[in-house]
């Protein structure tokens, strides 16, 4: 039972990750794919930050009279990863805009059809 209580947090985060992953690989709409990637990445960030949590700790800003802090290292990694994620999202969306201009659609299946015709 304690096994279950100690890990259910991670399990929910895994469900969140898989929701994003599913959107990416199952949906033919390109915007939805980018959004799926965004959700997938954000959920991975939640996973990392969950690792960093220490029971009874506070934010890792050193202050008098506090001895237990949460782990700062995953925070740093995720700060970096958030920015990387935004860069990916921006680039992906820019590509979507250009694809729409070139093909007139942002549906992957329709794009395949157009590519096959040529």
């Amino acid at each position, binding site marked *: 039972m304690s096994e279950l209580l100690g890990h259910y947090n991670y399990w929910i985060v895994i469900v969140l*990750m898989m929701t994003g*992953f599913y959107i*990416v*690989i199952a949906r033919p709409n*390109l915007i939805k*794919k980018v959004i799926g*990637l965004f959700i*997938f*990445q954000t959920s*991975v960030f939640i*996973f*990392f930050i969950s*690792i960093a949590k220490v029971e009874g700790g506070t934010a890792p800003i050193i202050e008098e009279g506090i001895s237990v802090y949460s782990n700062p*290292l*995953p925070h740093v*990694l995720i700060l*970096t*990863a958030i920015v*990387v994620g935004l*860069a*990916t999202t921006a*680039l*992906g969306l820019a*590509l*979507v805009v*250009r*694809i729409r201009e*070139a*093909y007139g659609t942002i549906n992957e299946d329709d*794009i395949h059809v157009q*590519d096959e015709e040529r």
Partner: protein
Amino acid sequence: MLSTHLPALQVVLPLASAPVCLLLRHPRHAWACALTISWLVLAIAVMLVQQVAATGTISYAIGAWATPWGIEYRIDMAGALMILVVATIGAVVLPFAGRSIQQEIRKKHSGLFYTCFLLCLAGLLGIVVTGDAFNLFVFLEISSLSSYVLISLGCTRRALTAAFQYLVMGTIGATFILIGVGLLYMLTGTLNMVDISQRLTEVADTRTIRVAFAFVTVGVSIKLALFPLHLWLPNAYTFAPSVVSAFFAATATKVGIYVLLRLFFTVFGIGFSFVAMHVGEIMMLLAAAAMMVASLVAIFQNNVKRMLAYSSVAQIGYIILGISLASRDGVAAGMIHLFNHALIKCALFLSLGCIFLRLGSVELQDMRGLAKRMPWTMAAFVAGGLSLIGLPLTSGFISKWYLVGAALTDGYWPLAVLILLSSLLALIYIWRVVETAYFQVPGAGMPLVKEAPASMLIPAWLLIGANFYIGVDASLVSGIAHQAAGILIEQGVR
């Protein structure tokens, strides 16, 4: 004094000159800037290889923080070989780019092209020299993002969809790597790869570490286009600008393979990767499938660039095959093929770039009788093709010789047969091009084209020359590769 800072300069130089390149208004200036930097990078790479050969593994603590606390740059023989590959290809490809980019990319984009090229170069070099698992992810993303941009600059609209497809798959791969790194950190408390490997011995037999291993392996396999995760590669190589295809075919996937080597041997160790997780058998199977299936698909392609892209997937199979043997000879053979294939594929794509410059197409049907009009270009293509098949006196022969030898030593004789079969398939698809270019008459109304300019032919022929040199005297490459493989195996055995 400067020589101690070479590992940092190797990466920071192209990284810091990319913004400068963005500010240069004239395309020629941006090109000149990128060219100078790429040659400097090559010079640094050569010096580093000498240093590593003289003193052994180099470690450079960035910010002077001791290893697990700060980020460490770590170069051993295997890393030095990879740096040399990436830097060489970068330096050879850029002179070619001047003319080719002028034609294939709109003028206002060329400054951005060189910016992204330098960023990609910095990213790839950063991946190779870093000793830190998370830093690897960051530089992986630098190289990936810049490569999405470089691919999307191709001249047809399909370049956009190819870039998007690569972006989606690449990001999934990177996120998988991130998950794996997170799991590793969770159980070891460190991000330095050597440090992880030391602390891993206590916790290796946990389900968490097994899953971490699976995730990083799958993530990296997407990046290196291991069959069947190669789906992004054919489109990306076909629709990217010629220079970009040449650069990526020689470097991007190869760096992915290097990361895989680091993971299997340095981080997880042979005992875990190959004995407990059976990654050798899985990789061998996938590699064999890649060699056969991708070569077969290549035969039926009418776009020569696409043909070469599928051939790349097959050749990655060869390299992985060598690694999957997990023996010193096997890994060395894989690395030799990695080096040789980088040279060959780059030369082949460069000659296609010459053809594209003159013809505006790389479709097989447009290449009828081309050999009479562009003799030097086609000769370069044929020379590269021969090496791809693995004829004696070419570098391809050397690497296949070592591969077959390693497979036979370990008693995998069916693999040797497969290598020969796959070479036969290579012979068929190369022959299709040769037959069209040399023995068919050009159709009526086909444009009368001139030979490609020297600035583009020289880089291609330089690589072809190196290829024949290795074909005759492979002692240097094979020496470095065997030394590197020895170090990897030593790290892997524990």
